[in-house]
C-alpha cells in the first residue's frame, strides 16, 4: 500500500459495491501483497453502476469538503515506481461539502465506459482499473477507498487466420518444415501442427515447443524487454529419421496466457511466441521462434 492511511483509525468506513455484484462474474486478481482476491469482471462499453456507503464510526462525525468517486484506468511501470499514468479518468461528485453523522449511501453510475485496454499484471508493468472514493477534508488527509475490478475485452474470431508454415534448417545438417495450423489462437485454443524432417544429420535427443511471452515496456532507449517461458511441452522423444513427421497438439488452456497486447497506450506491449526447440545429444539447442497472436474469445 502506497497510500498512507494514517496511523490512526479513519473516522469512517467506506464500502463500494456494484449493483449487479451478486450475479456478475468474479475473477481472481493478484494484489500487490501477493494475495489473490476475487473481483468483478467488466468489459468495455459496460455501465458500471453501484453504490458507495459511508459509515462513520460510532459517535464520530466526519467533516468534509465533498465526496467524489473516480473510475481510473492506470498503467504502472515498475521501473518508474510511483508514477501512474491514467489513461482513463472519470469523476462523479457524490456529495457537497458538509458533515456526516450517520451511515449514508450514494448510488453512482458510469455509463458505457470506454475501457479499451485489459487489466494486466506483468513483470514490469501493470494495467489496472479502480474505483476510487475520496472524502476531501481540510487540514487532515483525505479519506480514500479503492475497489479494483478487472476488464477483459473479447474479440470475434479473426476472419483471416493463416497457418504458419516454414522450412528452416542448417545447411547439410538439419532441414525441417513445420506447420502450425493457425497464426491466431484464442486462449483456450489448441495448437495443431506437424513437423516434417526433411534432412537429419545430427543426433537429436528430443524436441520441445515453448510458449514464450515477451513483455516490452517503455519506449526508445528506455525500453525494457522481459521474456518468460510459460510452457515447455515435449513434442518428440528420440532421434527421428528423414521423412518422419511428428504431430503437434498443444492445449493452451492450462497456461496463464493473456491476449496479445500491441503498444498499449504507447507504454507497453505483450507478445507471444512459439519456440520450437530441437536438442541434440550434446545438449545443443536449435530453435525457431514464431510469433502468434492470442486473442480472447467470448466464452459461451
Amino acid at each position, binding site marked *: 500500500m502506497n497510500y498512507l492511511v494514517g496511523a490512526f483509525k479513519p473516522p469512517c468506513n467506506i464500502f463500494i459495491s456494484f449493483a449487479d455484484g451478486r450475479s456478475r462474474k468474479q475473477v481472481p486478481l493478484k494484489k500487490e501483497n501477493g494475495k489473490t482476491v476475487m473481483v468483478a469482471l467488466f468489459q468495455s462499453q459496460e455501465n458500471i453502476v453501484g453504490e458507495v456507503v459511508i459509515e462513520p464510526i460510532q459517535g464520530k462525525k466526519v467533516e468534509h469538503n465533498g465526496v467524489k468517486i473516480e473510475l481510473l484506468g492506470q498503467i504502472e511501470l515498475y521501473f518508474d515506481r510511483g508514477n501512474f499514468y491514467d489513461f482513463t479518468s472519470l469523476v462523479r461528485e457524490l456529495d457537497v461539502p458538509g458533515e456526516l453523522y450517520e451511515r449514508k449511501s450514494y448510488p453512482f453510475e458510469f455509463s458505457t465506459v470506454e475501457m479499451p485496454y485489459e487489466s494486466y499484471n506483468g513483470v514490469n508493468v501493470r494495467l489496472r482499473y479502480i474505483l476510487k472514493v475520496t472524502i476531501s477534508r481540510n487540514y487532515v488527509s483525505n479519506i480514500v477507498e479503492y475497489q479494483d475490478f478487472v476488464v477483459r475485452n473479447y474479440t470475434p474470431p479473426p476472419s483471416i487466420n493463416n497457418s504458419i508454415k516454414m522450412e528452416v534448417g542448417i545447411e547439410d545438417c538439419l532441414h525441417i518444415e513445420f506447420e502450425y495450423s493457425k497464426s491466431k489462437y484464442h486462449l483456450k485454443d489448441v495448437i495443431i501442427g506437424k513437423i516434417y524432417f526433411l534432412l537429419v544429420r545430427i543426433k537429436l535427443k528430443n524436441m520441445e515447443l515453448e510458449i514464450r511471452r515477451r513483455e516490452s515496456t517503455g519506449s526508445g532507449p528506455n525500453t525494457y524487454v522481459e521474456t518468460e517461458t510459460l*510452457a515447455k511441452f515435449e513434442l*518428440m*522423444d*528420440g532421434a*527421428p529419421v528423414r521423412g518422419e513427421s511428428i504431430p503437434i*497438439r498443444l*492445449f493452451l488452456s492450462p497456461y496463464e496466457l493473456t491476449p496479445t497486447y500491441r503498444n498499449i497506450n504507447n507504454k507497453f506491449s505483450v507478445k507471444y511466441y512459439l519456440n520450437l526447440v530441437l536438442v541434440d545429444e550434446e545438449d545443443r539447442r536449435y530453435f525457431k521462434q514464431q510469433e502468434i497472436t492470442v486473442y480472447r474469445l467470448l466464452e459461451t
Partner: protein
Amino acid sequence: MMINEAEDEEKWLAEGIAGIQHNAFYMHRALDSNNLREALKYSAQMLSELRTSKLSPHKYYDLYMRAFDELRKLEIFFKDEGKHGVSVVDLYELVQHAGNILPRLYLLCTVGSVYIKSKEAPAKEVLKDLVEMCHAVQHPLRGLFVRSYLAQISRDKLPDIGSEYEGDDGTVMDAVEFVLQNFTEMNKLWVRMQHQGPGRVREKQEKERNELRDLVGKNLHVLSQIEGVDLEMYKETVLPRVLEQVVNCKDDLSQYYLMDCIIQVFPDEYHLQTLETLLGACPQLQPTVDIKTVLSRLMDRLSNYAASSADVLPEFLQVEAFGKLSNAIGKVIETQVDMPAVGAITLYVSLLTFTLRVHPDRLDYVDLVLGACVKKLSNIPKLDDSRATKQVVALLSAPLEKYNDIVTALTLSNYPRVMDHLDNGTNKVMAMVIIQSIMKNNTCISTADKVEVLFELIKGLIKDMDGSDVDELDEDDFKDEQNSVARLIHMLYNNEPEEMLKIICTVRKHTMAGGPKRLPFTVPSLVFSALRLVRQLQGQEGDIVGEEVPATPKKIFQLLTQIIEDLSTVPSPELALRLSLQCAEAANDGDLEHVAYEFFTQAFVLYEEEIADSKAQVTAIHLIVGTLQRMNVFGVENRDTLTHKATGYSARLLKKPDQCRAVYACSHLFWVDDQDGVKDGERVLLCLKRALRIANAAQQMANVARGSSGPVTLFVEILNKYLYFFEKGNQQITGAAIQGLIELINTEKQSDSATPDSASDAFLASTMRYIQFQRQKGGIMGEKFESIKL
C-alpha cells in the same frame, strides 16, 4: 567392464522400479480419494521412469510391465466418471496437458481405451488419433514399447466384424488400417535400432534387438485374429501392405523374422491363394536373409496342410502351387549368387518334400526338382561341404521313403545325375540306402532298363570310382557293401525268361566291371540267379521248342561259362570251381551232357592250374567227387574219363590221410544208389582197397616219422565204407573182408606203437555196435550181417 555394466544396469533398474513404486503409492492414494489431479500428476511421474535410456530391452521390459500393471488400475479409475466427475472427452484432453511426451502418450492410450469403450466417439477416430500421436516417440526402444502398449489396449476394441465397435463409422477396414499402421511404425523403429552404437557392441545389440521382435510380430498376430480379414482382404490389403514394409525396411533380421511370422500366423489356405505375392517378395529381400529357411518353413506348412485333408488338394492344383514355388526358388537362387550350395539344396529338399506330399502322382515334378538341383550343382563337380552332402542325401532319400519303391525312383532321369555330385563315400552310403530300401520293401526290379538305371545309381558300389582311395576302405564296410549288392542281385527278377535273360546280361555287364575285389561277392549271386532261370526253363521244357526263343538253357550256360571264366581270372579259382560244379549239376538236370562235361572240364582245369593250396585241393576234390557222383547225364565214355580224372587226382593229394579219404570217397563214383545208377562193385572194391593201402602207408609213415603210428581213424572210416557198400548189396564186399578189416583194426590198436585215441575208439565202438544191431535186427539184413564174424 562388462560386469560393471551389468551391475550398473541392475542398479538403474532397481532405481526405476523404486521410482515407479513410490509414485504408484501416491497415485493409489489419489485414486482412493478420487483426486483426479493428483492421480494424473503421480501417474505421469511414475511413467516418467520409462523415459530412461540406460536399460537393455530385457530390463526395460521389466520396468514396462510394472508400469503396465499400475496403468490398469488407473484405467479402472478413469472408467468411473462418478469418481472423478470429468467426462471422458475432457479427460482425453486433460491427459494431454502432460509436459513430457512419453507419460502423455501412455496416459492418452489409457484414456483412449476408456474413450472407445464409452462409445462417445467412434473407435476408428480414437484409434487413428492414438496411432498418429505415437509418432512423437522416435526413440526405438521407448517407441516400440509405447506402441506395444497401444496394441495391447486396443486389441479388444478394434471395429472388427461382429465386434460391438463396428458400425457405420468404423469398419473392419479401419481396424486393419490401424493395426497395419502401428505395425509399420513399430517395424521401422525396430529396424532403426541396428544403426545405433559402435561396431564392438553390435553383436550384443543385435541380440537385444532380437529380443524385441515379438513386439513387432504381435501386430501380425493381431491381424490374423481379426475376424473380418477374409481371404479377399488378406489378398488385397493385408499381405501387400505387410510385404511392402518387409521389403522396404531393407533389414535382414527384420525381413527374416517377419517373413517367418507371416507364414506362421496366417492360415494355410491364405498362403496357398496368395503364393505368388508372397513368393514374389522373396527375391527382393536382402541377400543376407536366410530365405531358404523361410521358404522351407512355408513349404513345410503347405505340405502339412496338404497332408491334413484330401479335400484341399484341388486347391493346390488350382493355384499351381508347385510351379510357383519352383519358380520362386529358382529366382531366389538366381538372385542370391552367394548362397552356398547347402542353402540351395535345402530349398530343393523342401520343395521335394512338398511335391511328394502334395503331388505324389507327379513324378515329373520330382524329376524337375532333381533336375534343377543338378543344374545348380553343375558348376561344382563334387560336394565337399558335409552339410550340403547331408542335404543331398536327404534329397535323394525323400522319394525312396515316400514311394517305398525304388522302381519309381528309377524312372527319374535326374536321380543318378544328382548322385554324381556326391563324394565317393556318400555316394556309397546313398547306394546302400537304395539297396536297403529295396530289401526292406522286397521290391522286385523286373526290367532290364530299370536294372540298368539302378546299377547306374549304385555304381559307387559296383566299381571303383575315379580318384577314390582304395587303401582307405574299411574291410568290413566293403564286405557289407558287396554282400548287399549280392543280395540285391536276387531282387532283380522277372518271370518272363526273355526279360530275365536281359536282366542277367545287364547285371553281368555291370558286375564284371567290379574288379577282383568285388567279383567274388557278386558273381555267385549272378550265377545262381541265372541258374534259377535255367531251372525255370527246364520246368516248362515242353513249351520251348521253337528256334526263335531267345532264352534257352544252352545260351544261358554259354553265358555262365564266360562268367565263371571271368571269375577265374580274378583270380578266385575255388569259387569258380564251385560255381562250375553248380552249373554242371544244373546242366545235368537239363540233360545237357556236353554242357555238363564242359563245366566239369572247366572245374578240372581250374583244379589243375589254379588251385595249389593243399587244403583247398582236398576240399575241391571232395566237391568234384560229390558232384560227379550225382551226375547221370554222362555217357559211359565221358563218365569214365571224369571218374578216372577224379580218382587220379584223389590219389595224388599231398597228405596221406587226405589221399585216403579222397580215394574212399571216389568209391561212390562207381556205385550210385539209384535204380539205374552205375553199380560197378569191382571198382568200388578197388578204390577201397587202394584206400586201405594208403591208410597203411600213412600208418607206416607216421611210425617212421614220429615213432608212433597215428590213430586208427582212417581204418574205421574205411570200415564204414565197407559196411555201407555191404549193406547196399555190393557183391564184391564180403563179410569176410569186413571181418578181416576189423581184425586189422584191432591188431593195429594193440600194436606197441599205437597211440590211444578216445575219439577213434568211440568211433570204432559205435561202428561195432551198429554191426551188432544189424545182426540182431533179423530179416535179410540180419542174415547178411550174420556172415560177419566178430
